């Protein structure tokens, strides 16, 4: 079990972290660049010193400001894999793999075969492709018998299919070895593919921790929603009573400047063309632009004063009235906090 609760001062803000990752579980830290994700990993690895807090791994206290204790990096048994795989360029693949702990030949061969680098053991790192280098770096950590695996955007820059393959490999190895693993990424899809739990980090603060699906579909605040890909926030008004203290009064009209308004978060991938009142919020607007996106289309739709982005299977008609249904959107109060469940039967604010 990795149990960390600490604060690290950075020049611009303080990173506050509280994570508990049981053996075999994967936690993904997701947030924008400069949010403090790498700092958090480096504190666990012992490369930066927390101002306050405690880090415990498998019952061993690695850092405790209270006890004035800090185990040095070389005694932590924590593996850190960065975007740059950090292979030692003067050593062959075989020597790199067994750097942390001399391995027996069968052990080495078995792992190399598992990682798909079995025929590269005598090759120097400069001859490896990006994916092969990452596999070797991962194998080196596994052979060193690390008690925790920290992954700092390890597969950034690799193509999508290779990234997915390596992510699946790491997941299977983490489960098989029963070690806690923490992945830092700013690609939500990578985080979702990897993690049991997703933590959202912004300017050093952990805004939300939970199962990936829950965090994405039920963000606790508008800021979290923005970070996980909600690209538009449309003011809504209630047309029937709702529950909860923050629910708007039925029939309220939201002011045009949206101050004090309830808003619905619009995720581009949670939209359907046409009116489907039973499935979510129905909005009416006008298509201002559309472009191919993947196997479908991406359209900008002006709804009242807000432009929302929708991913649709077919190209929407330009101009004229366009109706789109937003599947079960999250709602946010005036303070940006999510409203508990659906506050009322919402309806788009009409000008």
């Amino acid at each position, binding site marked *: 079990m990795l149990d960390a609760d600490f604060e690290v001062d950075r020049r611009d803000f303080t990173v506050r972290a509280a994570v508990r990752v049981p053996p075999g579980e994967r936690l993904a830290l997701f947030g924008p660049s400069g949010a403090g994700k790498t700092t958090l990993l480096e504190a666990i690895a012992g490369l930066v010193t927390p101002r306050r807090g405690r880090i415990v791994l498998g019952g061993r206290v690695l850092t405790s400001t209270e006890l004035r204790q800090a185990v040095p*990096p*070389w005694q932590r048994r924590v*593996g*850190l894999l960065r975007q*740059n795989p950090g292979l*030692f360029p003067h050593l062959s693949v075989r020597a790199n793999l067994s750097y*942390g702990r001399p391995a027996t030949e069968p052990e080495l061969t078995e792992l190399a075969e598992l990682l798909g680098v079995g025929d590269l053991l005598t090759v*120097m790192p400069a001859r490896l492709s990006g994916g092969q280098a990452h596999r070797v770096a991962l194998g080196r950590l596994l052979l*060193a018998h690390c008690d925790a695996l920290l992954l700092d955007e390890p597969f950034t820059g690799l193509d999508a299919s290779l990234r997915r393959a390596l992510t699946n490999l790491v997941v299977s190895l983490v489960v098989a070895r029963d070690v806690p693993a923490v992945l830092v990424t700013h690609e939500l899809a990578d985080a979702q593919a990897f993690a049991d739990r997703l933590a959202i980090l912004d300017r050093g603060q952990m805004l939300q921790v939970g199962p990936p699906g829950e965090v994405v579909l039920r963000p606790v605040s508008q800021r979290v929603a923005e970070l996980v890909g909600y690209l538009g926030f449309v003011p809504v008004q209630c047309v029937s009573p709702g529950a909860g203290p923050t629910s708007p009064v039925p029939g309220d009209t939201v002011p045009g400047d949206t101050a004090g308004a309830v808003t619905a978060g619009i995720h581009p991938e949670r939209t359907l063309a046409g009116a489907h009142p039973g499935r979510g919020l129905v909005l009416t607007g006008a298509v201002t632009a559309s472009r191919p996106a993947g196997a479908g289309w991406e359209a900008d739709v002006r709804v009242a004063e807000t432009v929302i982005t929708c991913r649709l299977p077919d190209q929407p008609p330009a101009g004229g009235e366009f109706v789109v249904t937003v599947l079960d959107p999250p709602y946010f109060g005036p303070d940006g906090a999510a409203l508990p469940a659906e506050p009322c039967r919402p309806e788009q604010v009409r000008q």
Partner: protein
Amino acid sequence: MSLAASPAVAAGGTVTGDGSPGPSGPLSRPGPQRVRSVSGAVSVIGAAVIWIALLGPVIALLTHLSWNAIRSSLTAPGALDPLVVSVESGAVTLAVLFGLGTPLAWMMARGRLPFPRVWEAGVLCSLLLPPLVIGLLLIFMVGPYTPIGEMLGHLNLSASNTFLALCIAEVYESAPYYVLSAQAAFSGVDPRLEQQAQLLGDRPLRAFRRVTLPLATPGLAMGLSVAWARAMGAFGAVIIIAYHPFGIPLQIYTTLQETGLASALPFALVLLVVALPLPLAAYVWSARAGRRLRG
């Protein structure tokens, strides 16, 4: 831009009103390419001239030597004693530089020292000062009537006209070449590799030995070999503080003074033969090591 100043015109082409190259015959070749090829040829010729000029003294030495002069100069009784002195003092100098200069260079490369510019300035100081001035100042620092000189005296040592003085002078003249080369070599090693080695269980010293040192070795070897060449040729500080025992440079100087140019030239050849192979070998080896790392 005036036509006279145009590169295309200067290269024998024409330019149109908007400055673009003319359209026909040999003039239809794109102007900038023509200029590039001409400037490229000029660059190659310039480089060759500089290279030959730099090698000129060596060529002159070889063309002015006769085997008889070499044989008679080098077979005289005690003629090769200065060579032994130079090689011994050079070896001591390299040992001192490696032992003391390497940690300094590593700390400078990793920013582990407070006021790093001050440390760099200190290393550069002996590079920027004329060797003759270094010799004069060394007398004030380690001469027999200074605190350091007196302390050495208690140990029955002297830093004036002794082998120790020769080594001190050579260290001062060659140290910046090694320390700055070693600093560059260490700076070229990604510190994250050292971090990775530590996370894999290596204590810092072990990580240094297993990762940093092997990766920096080509640069360190180059630095040491250049320092060796400087130590072999050290003259300015040496003539002030360590006139005795004679090394090769002083042998050349005194032979020149006493018996003339023809007698001094064989010793110059000896100096080149002793000083140059190590840098050349280090250059070839470090180039091969670099190719190996780059795959």
